[in-house]
C-alpha cells in the first residue's frame, strides 16, 4: 500500500511537521527527522532549500539561506535520507520549488526519490495547469504530487481535488508561510467541497503554531501541517534544537490526536 495512505490510516488525525533540510546542517536534520517520527509525526515534510522561495515568509526564507550558505545541495539531501532510512521508516515528503527539480533533471530527481524512499512532492510554484511538468516521472516512480488548494481557489477546488494524490494541502490563509494569530478563512467549507469529490486525506497548513490552532484545524480535516513554528525553534537552537523540537511535536501530536 501507498505509504502516505498508510500513514493517514494509522493516524486518522495526522500531525505533519516541516523542516528545511540542511538547517543548520544535514546531521541535525537527520536527528530532527528521527526525533519528530518518535514524537508521533504521521508524515515529515522536508524542504529542499531554494535561493528564491517566493511562497515563504521570513522564517523559512532565513532557514533556506542558512542551509544554502552551509553548502546544502539536493545530492547531499538524498545521501542524508539514505542514512535516515536505517533509523526510521516515517513517510517523507519533499517541499521545494520547481527549478531545483527541473535543473536536477525531473526523471533523475524522481528516480532518486523512489530509491531513498520519498513518497511525495509539494511544489508551490507548479499549479494544476503546469502539473504535466512533473507528473509522468513522479507517477512512474510511485511518488505522489501533493496538490495545494488556497482560500482563493473557489471553482478550482473540485478540479484540483479530483486529481489529488497523497494528501490535499489546504492553505489556510492568503500570503506566504508564517505564524498567524488568527486564521479567518472558512476552512470547513473548502474541506467539504474537497470531500465531495475525493477520499484523499486533507491536511491544513500555513499560519498554525499553537496546539489550539492545530486541534481546530484537525477537527475539520485529517491533519495539521506546521512549518514556520518549528523552523523558528531550529533557528533559535541550531544543533541543540532536537530536544525542544521533539517536545513541541509531542505536544502538537497530542493536541491533534485528541480531537
Amino acid at each position: 500500500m501507498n505509504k502516505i495512505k498508510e500513514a493517514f490510516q494509522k493516524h486518522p488525525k495526522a500531525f505533519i511537521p516541516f523542516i528545511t533540510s540542511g538547517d543548520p546542517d544535514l546531521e541535525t536534520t537527520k536527528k530532527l527527522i528521527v526525533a519528530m517520527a518518535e514524537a508521533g509525526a504521521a508524515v515529515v515534510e522536508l524542504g529542499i532549500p531554494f535561493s528564491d522561495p517566493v511562497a515563504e515568509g521570513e522564517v523559512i526564507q532565513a532557514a533556506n539561506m542558512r542551509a544554502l550558505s552551509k553548502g546544502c545541495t539536493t545530492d547531499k539531501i538524498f545521501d542524508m535520507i539514505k542514512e535516515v532510512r536505517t533509523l526510521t521508516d516515517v513517510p517523507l515528503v519533499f517541499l521545494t520549488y520547481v527549478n531545483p527539480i527541473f535543473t536536477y533533471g525531473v526523471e533523475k530527481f524522481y528516480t532518486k526519490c523512489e530509491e531513498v524512499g520519498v513518497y511525495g512532492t509539494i511544489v508551490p510554484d507548479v499549479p494544476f495547469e503546469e502539473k504535466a511538468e512533473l507528473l509522468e516521472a513522479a507517477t512512474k516512480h510511485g511518488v505522489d504530487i501533493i496538490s495545494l488548494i488556497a482560500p482563493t481557489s473557489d471553482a478550482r477546488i473540485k478540479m484540483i481535488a479530483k486529481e489529488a494524490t497523497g494528501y490535499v494541502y489546504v492553505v489556510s490563509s492568503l500570503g506566504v508561510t508564517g505564524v498567524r494569530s488568527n486564521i479567518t478563512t472558512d476552512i470547513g467549507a473548502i474541506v467539504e467541497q474537497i470531500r465531495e469529490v475525493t477520499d484523499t486525506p486533507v491536511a491544513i497548513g500555513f499560519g498554525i503554531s499553537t496546539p489550539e490552532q492545530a486541534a481546530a484545524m484537525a477537527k475539520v480535516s485529517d491533519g495539521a501541517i506546521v512549518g514556520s513554528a518549528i523552523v523558528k525553534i531550529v533557528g533559535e537552537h541550531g544543533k541543540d534544537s532536537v530536544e525542544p523540537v521533539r517536545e513541541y511535536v509531542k505536544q502538537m501530536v497530542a493536541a491533534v490526536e485528541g480531537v
Partner: protein
Amino acid sequence: MTKGRYGIHGGQYIPETLMNAVLELEKAYEFYKNDPEFLNELQALYREYANRPSLLYYAEKMTNDLGGAKIYLKREDLNHTGAHKINNVLGQCLLAKKMGKKRVIAETGAGQHGVATATVAALMGMDCVVYMGKEDTERQALNVFRMELLGAKVVAVESGTQTLKDAVNEAMRVWTAQVEDTFYVLGSVMGPHPYPEMVRDFQKVIGKEVKEQMLAKEGRLPDAVIACVGGGSNAMGLFYDFIPDEEVELIGVEAAGRGVNTAETAATIARGSEGIFHGMKSYFMQDEYGQIAPVYSISAGLDYPGIGPEHAYLHDIGRAKYVPCTDDESVEAFEYLSRMEGIIPAVESAHALSYAMKLAPTLSKDKIIVVNLSGRGDKDVAAIARYKGVNLHE
C-alpha cells in the same frame, strides 16, 4: 503544452493562491486588447500624456564619426518619466482601472518602472506601493524620492541579493497576501502568462513607430535594430513588428558586468541555462542545482538573472541575436553619446549604443541601424561619477 508558450518557454508557474487572479487578468486582457474604446483611451494617453510618438532621430555626427552605417536613435528617453516603461504602465493601469482595482504594486530595478507606476497611479487616483532592492534604493536614491513625491510608498527589500530579482520575489509575496484587491503591474516581458504577451503588446508601439518613421525618412526598413535586454521589454517592443521582416537583424545587448566570463555578470543568454523561475520557463543564471545565481551589472535595470520567454524563443530559433556588453564599454558609450550628440542616455541604453558603435564601422554607409534609446541618463549621473572616482557633493 499550456498557455502562453513561446516554443518551450513561458507558461504559468505560480502558486495556487495567485491562479484565479492571473486567470482573471488573462480574461480581462483578452477582452480589452480588442476593445476599441480601451485602445482609443490608451492611444490618447500615449499621445497626450506620454508624448508619443517618440522621435526617430538621425545621429548624423555619431554616424560621421564612426564612418559606417547610418545610425538612428529611437528617442524613448523623451517620453514622460524618461523611459519606455511608461508605455506598459499606462496599458496595465488602464486595465487595472477597467477591472475595478484601486491599488497597484510594482517591482523596480533602476527605478524607472517604479517611477512610471507611481506616476500613472497618481494620474489615475490609485494607491501605489513599489518594491525595490535595498542595494538599488542606494544606487538610485533620486528615483526613490521621485516615487515618494508622486505619492507612492517605496519598500526597500532586504532579502537575497537586494536587487531586482528580490524585488520581484517580494512583490509576488505581497501580491499573494493582497491578491483580492491588488493589481500587480509587472515591469517587463516576464513572469507568468499573460504578462510577457501583455507587456510586449503595450511596448510594441516602439517598433511600429520605428517602422513608419523609417519608411517616411528612408523609404525602406533598417538593416538592424538594437536594444538592451534585462527582462527585455524595450527590446521586445522594438523587435516585435520586425519579426516577420527577415531582412531586419534583431540584436539584443545583455549586461556583461565585469565580463561575460567572470562571476560578476548578468548576461543570461551567454551564460544561463534553461530553468523555471518567476512564473516562466526561460533561460536563467543558476548553478547545477537550480539555485538562482547572484548577477551583477553597473545598470540596476539590467541586473536580472533571467530573460523574457519570447526572447529565449527568438534566440532558440535564431531570429534574434544576443550579444554582451561590459560595464566599461557601456560607460564609454554613455560618455560618447553625451559629448557627440548632446544626449545623456540611460546606462541601460548605453549597452545597446555600445554595440552599435562596434557594429556601425563594420557596415557600409548605405546600411541603416536603429538603436533604442530606452531611457534618459539623468538618473545615472551620480553613479557614473562614482564609477569614475569623481566625488560629487550633492
